[in-house]
């Protein structure tokens, strides 16, 4: 939407109103943390959005230059704190890439199980908070009800609920406790029917569709141009998922697993007869599609967890030995991106022959996704800003690092 009047002469006869600058955040209910958006608005119409980030900057990269890779694992938990497992995995794999390590079969399946569970948890938060952003409180409680059960499983597994540090360089820190697989299966069984409830309360809700269909349309080219990834990229119809298209060291983790990459190609989502239909008002790349992709990915993750549990039961051997803290890193550098729930989380490690990395880098998916908010919000209404921001599903811990 272009807010400039077509004919400059028209503006003179129109009512002249002053633009105002509004600070949305850093303390605001729907900025998902400490994000500050400066809105330049003419009444309800937003003409410009300038994000200011850095309120949660904790010098993670600098810290990484002073600790050994395994000691940095807890810092990765605190990046995307809604998906600690996926952050752990990204960093662990990156260091393993530099070290040229392979993890045992059992650890590989444990990684898939926990990461996909964490992906479900993260997408549930995204769904619930998106409901909040649109003024509907109830989906949030529904989402957190199920997420709690996942966190309970994690707590049983490693003692932590958010800052997990479970996956580590060289494998995972511990094997599953007795009976965990049964409880996990029990959770999946009660979770699957509830997904329909989520669809009823949001996805196919008429008000919800009106609020987010055709709002914040991000074309595929723009999404790639801004380096968007994850559901934001796939919501624009780009069939790209690092679990399938990533580097071999990462895709090897998912070897033998069958899952669909959720993206609309040729006007259809994979297995779209099972899910609520795409409303006519929705445009590919809008907030509704981003939301929908997440909802469908949850089902794929459930499938992956189930497969992972089957593989795990059949796998023999240990679940990996964490590398020693004094493990020397070879000279050289390795960069690896993994498919975290929010998008592609990249880590880079530069080794100099000592046990402490020379340089550590974290490339955050939310960072790139958020950078697209300026053009997305141009000309929208104030109420659309939370709707667009929520559909990007950012976590400030990851953006500010």
């Amino acid at each position, binding site marked *: 939407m272009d807010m400039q009047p077509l004919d400059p002469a028209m503006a003179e006869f129109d009512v002249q109103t002053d633009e105002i600058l509004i600070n949305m955040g850093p303390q605001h*209910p729907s900025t998902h943390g400490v994000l500050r958006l400066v809105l330049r608005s003419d009444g309800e119409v937003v003409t410009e959005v300038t994000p200011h980030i850095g309120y949660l900057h904790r010098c993670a990269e600098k810290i990484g230059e002073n600790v050994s890779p395994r000691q940095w694992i807890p810092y990765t938990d605190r990046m995307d704190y809604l998906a600690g497992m996926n952050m752990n995995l990204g960093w662990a794999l990156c260091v393993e890439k530099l070290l040229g390590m392979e993890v045992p079969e059992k650890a590989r399946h444990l990684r898939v199980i926990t990461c996909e569970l964490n992906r479900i948890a993260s997408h549930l938060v995204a769904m619930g908070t998106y409901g909040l952003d649109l003024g509907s409180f109830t989906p949030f409680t529904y989402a957190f009800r199920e997420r709690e059960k996942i966190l309970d499983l994690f707590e049983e597994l490693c003692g932590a609920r958010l800052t997990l540090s479970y996956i580590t360089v060289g494998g995972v820190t511990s094997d599953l406790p007795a009976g965990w697989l049964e409880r996990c299966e029990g959770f999946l069984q009660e979770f699957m029917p509830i997904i329909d409830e989520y669809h009823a309360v949001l996805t196919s809700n008429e008000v919800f569709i009106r609020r987010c269909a055709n709002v914040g349309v991000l074309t595929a080219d723009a999404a790639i141009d801004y380096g968007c990834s994850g559901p934001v990229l796939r919501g624009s119809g780009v069939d790209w998922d690092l679990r399938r298209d990533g580097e071999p060291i990462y895709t090897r983790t998912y070897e033998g697993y069958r899952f669909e990459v959720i993206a609309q190609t040729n006007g259809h989502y994979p297995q779209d007869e099972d899910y609520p239909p795409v409303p006519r008002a929705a445009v590919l790349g809008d907030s509704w599609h981003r939301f929908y992709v997440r909802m469908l990915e949850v089902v794929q993750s459930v499938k992956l967890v189930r497969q992972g549990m089957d593989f795990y039961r059949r796998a023999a051997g240990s679940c990996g030995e964490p590398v020693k803290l004094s493990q020397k890193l070879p000279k050289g550098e390795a960069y690896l991106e993994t498919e975290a729930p929010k998008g592609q989380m990249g880590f880079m490690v530069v080794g100099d022959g000592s046990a402490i990395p020379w340089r550590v880098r974290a490339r955050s998916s939310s960072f790139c996704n958020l950078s697209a908010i300026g053009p997305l919000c141009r000309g929208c209404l104030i*109420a659309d800003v939370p709707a667009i921001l929520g559909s990007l599903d950012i976590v400030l811990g990851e953006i500010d690092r």
Partner: protein
Amino acid sequence: MAEYLAQYITPPWLAYLLVALVQCVLLLAVAVVVAGGYTWVERKVAGRVQDRLGPTRVGGRFGWLQALADGLKLLCKEDLVPGSADAMLFRMAPYISFCASFSVFLALPFADGWVAQRLDVGIFFILAVAGVEVFGVILGGYASGSKWSLFGAMREAAQVVSYEVPLALCAVIPVMAAGTMDLVSIGQMQTGWLSNWLVFHDPFTFVTFWVYFTCATASVNRAPFDLAEAESELVAGFLTEYSGFRWSIFFMAEYASMFVVSGLAAILFCGGWNGPLPITSWLGLTADNGPILAFLGNFLGACNFTAKACLGMIVMVWARWTLPRLRIDQVMTVCLKYCVPLAAAMLLGAMLWTYTWPNGLILKSVRLLPAASQTPAVSTASAPGAH
């Protein structure tokens, strides 16, 4: 009552004053109890909608005293006025809102004749005074000196002023069917069976009832039309800078006006204090059988009326915790593109219907009271200035 007392108390105005005072206190109690009780109901209903329990601790198993505890907490909070606020207007705004929504209770009949001021133009009075509530909100938003508050206030102004139009149109339709603007008479008309309720008067009033309810929800700022607060967009809208007691006064005003619009829906469409079955007349609880039985009948009626109003409020809660919020342009679209034309069409239809079948099509059941064609009887409680 006042006339009766005036025979014994001199000067007579003192009697009127005393009666007015008693009525005010009673109604204030109603308003506050409604607000307090209603917060509890809202928490409980919201809890159940969201698959949780709601309050369970304060005051016993069901958290009966939660509202009281909240009220105490709010009273204990610091009364903050932001530095950039216009202090006088900021302090005044909640009272304006509350006074407006409280004054409406004066003309709201709880049962046959149980009304503080029986007015010939009761419905007109209610709509007019309830509309004043928005001034408190606009003032509060403007005086807060915060942009978020200002946005909330402007939204409220745009929304409420727009929704007054279809709301009034909807209210006119039952008035037309009844032939009077006196709420007590409208209530009396619907005595008897369910089929006497104005919502079943003709197809047009039936549709109007739903339009009315939508507009009423919007005009009292309840979700999905709560754009003035819109916590995910405007922090808390016009309430952003309010805290403690002043906040709770706004809050009470909101609940009071919810009760009023729901009560109005009950009177205009759903038989007012009359149940679906003429139980009071079966039991003989009418004015013909003496004042005590009449009082009992009226008491039942008042309970009935309150129950209907509460049901309306619960539907509002149910909608609030189910639906996402609309956007401001969508709210205006709903009003101007759907509600206003629909209400206007219903008005036209109801007019033609009433003209064609003045006595209604559906067979009327036993009428216990004279129809609305008669001049409404002067209520015992009405003050001299009412006519």
